[in-house]
């Protein structure tokens, strides 16, 4: 792997609630190269959003606590930085893109105000400079009538435009890594494609690395070089996107793939994954996926599978990776 930009090892995050302790992230680790897009695929509750917020250190603590792990950005360790240093890192070296632009933007300030605020605060620009730069940013992310849009309020913008504004804010300080948390999930399908295209071109232009968090497999495959699949707080499969898609090495991934209806095949019922999503307060012994897994045996139900290599740059947390049927 050339030029590792971000390296995470054994990240663990706990949520201490009234009802008990929930291990939202249980040993997540991966490395991200320069200009690479890694998709983190998972359902809600898998820990994908929490791990990203842990990297940015914007989790509410309490109730969340990062109990273990290292997150190396280049040559510095993020988890042990003090708050002032971390603030420097945020936005300028690691940036985050949020899911719903209408809640991530402040409704009482104009788009221009929010962009300019960022530029003036972090780059010490004057009003005039900041306004010009904001205009340029909006144009760069492909917003038409950018000059008018500067004075618009978030609720006056469509979802697609608002999300482009968020992208502009995320890349304004030219970060090395972008954590995109479900950037298209709240958008219409047609607009989704446009925003993804925008992200793709930004990555290509600037060699920015991206962690693309999504629950949508098509989005993942469309943009990412590698895919990491998460379940119940752990990565259960990791590998090149194409390979994961054609030959999954974990039954959960296979289940996800199978539940996408094929327009050419006539089916009576939509196949899903048996059982219900895991209750993080009461995880089963052994593999967390075992209650729903067609390949589960006694070993699966008692022993937690380790995350091990099943091929060059191919990893799985399953005792039966080669038996997985697509």
């Amino acid at each position, binding site marked *: 792997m050339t030029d590792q930009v971000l390296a995470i090892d054994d990240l663990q995050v706990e949520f201490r609630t009234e009802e008990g302790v929930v291990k939202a992230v249980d040993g997540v680790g991966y490395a991200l190269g320069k200009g690479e897009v890694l998709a983190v695929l998972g359902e809600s509750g898998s820990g994908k959003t929490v791990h990203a917020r842990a990297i940015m250190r914007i989790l509410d603590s309490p109730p969340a606590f990062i109990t273990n792990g290292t997150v190396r950005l280049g040559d510095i360790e993020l988890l042990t930085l003090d708050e002032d240093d971390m603030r420097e890192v*945020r936005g300028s070296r690691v940036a985050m893109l949020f899911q719903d632009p209408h809640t991530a*933007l402040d409704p009482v300030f104009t788009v221009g105000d929010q962009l300019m605020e960022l530029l003036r605060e*972090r780059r010490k620009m004057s009003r005039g400079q900041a306004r010009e730069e904001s205009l340029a940013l909006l144009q760069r992310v492909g917003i038409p009538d950018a000059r008018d849009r500067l004075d618009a309020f978030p609720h006056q913008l469509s979802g697609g435009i608002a999300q482009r504004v968020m992208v502009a804010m995320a890349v304004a300080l030219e970060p090395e890594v972008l954590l995109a948390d479900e950037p298209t999930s709240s958008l219409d399908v047609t607009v989704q494609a446009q925003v993804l295209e925008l992200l793709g071109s930004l990555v290509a232009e600037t060699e920015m690395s991206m962690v693309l968090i999504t629950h949508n497999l098509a989005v993942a495959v469309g943009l990412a070089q590698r895919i990491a699949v998460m379940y119940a707080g752990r990565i259960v499969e990791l590998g090149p996107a194409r390979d994961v898609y054609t030959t999954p090495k974990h039954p959960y991934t296979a289940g996800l793939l199978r539940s996408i209806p094929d327009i050419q095949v006539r089916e009576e019922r939509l196949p899903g994954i048996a059982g219900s999503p895991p209750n993080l307060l009461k995880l089963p012994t052994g593999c967390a996926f075992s209650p729903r897994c067609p390949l589960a045996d006694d070993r699966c139900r008692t022993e937690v599978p380790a995350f091990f290599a099943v091929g060059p740059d191919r990893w799985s947390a399953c005792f039966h990776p080669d038996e997985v049927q697509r």
Partner: protein
Amino acid sequence: MLVVPVLLGTILLVYGLVFLTPGDPIRRLAGTKPLSESTYNEITHRYHLDQPFVVQYLYYLNGIVHGDLGATFTGRDVSEIIKERFPVTLKLTLGAFTVEVVMGLALALVAALKRRTLADTGILVYTLVMITIPVIVLGFILQYTFGVKLGWFPVAGIQDGWKSYVLPSLTLGLGSAAALGRLARSNILDNMAGEHIRAAVARGLPRRRVVGRHVMKNSLVPIVTILGLDLAYLMGGAILTERIFNLPGLGNALFTGIATENGPLVVGLVTLSAIIFVFTILIVDLLCARIDPRISYE
């Protein structure tokens, strides 16, 4: 503009309560006092009671527009009384309002920023107690402790300049300060947990200064709304406060009006306060539309 029909409706309501309800309105205004025939005729003439209702009412409205809020049985114009006593009540209300804003916001901010600490719990308990204590009781407590026992402030009259207004302002303002404090605290906390705040932090903006700006502007609408609506409470409470501290303001005039069964005075003052309140709500609505672009004023 919706203000006009509501304003007219309110004036009509008060007018209707006096003049349209069954019975003799003049008798009603006079209470149990005897009325000479000439006084009776004079009143009938002045309020045009011999004319059909619509005409009556139009004369009445016309009068209000020109500042005529009726006249008492002793011949004094209500508007004269208002001019005379208004400054005292204004000072009291401003004092109470200042207490409400300064203390209320201070409580809210401290509680929100020091969440889950002793300060927060203390403030919650304090505010709960303060909203429970009615104005009358609070007035007595303050009068007794700071007026009688400690002798720091006067307990009656306005002869001591600004000092005379301290205890009354506190009496009237502490309760609403507590209410504002609680609501503002909860609102600020909600805003602090908002996604756009998290997004701002994720951009590396400093929490205190910049993020605070975002939180406060978002909280401004409910705070401004509460402040406006509280005016109604302040107007009612002013009567009690002026009575307890013997301040020669409009509230005390109203109280005397009640005691002496001075109907026209009561009607005039209540009409005035309703008009003031309607305009206050209007101002609040306009301000909120300015602050929050999602609110449009039809």
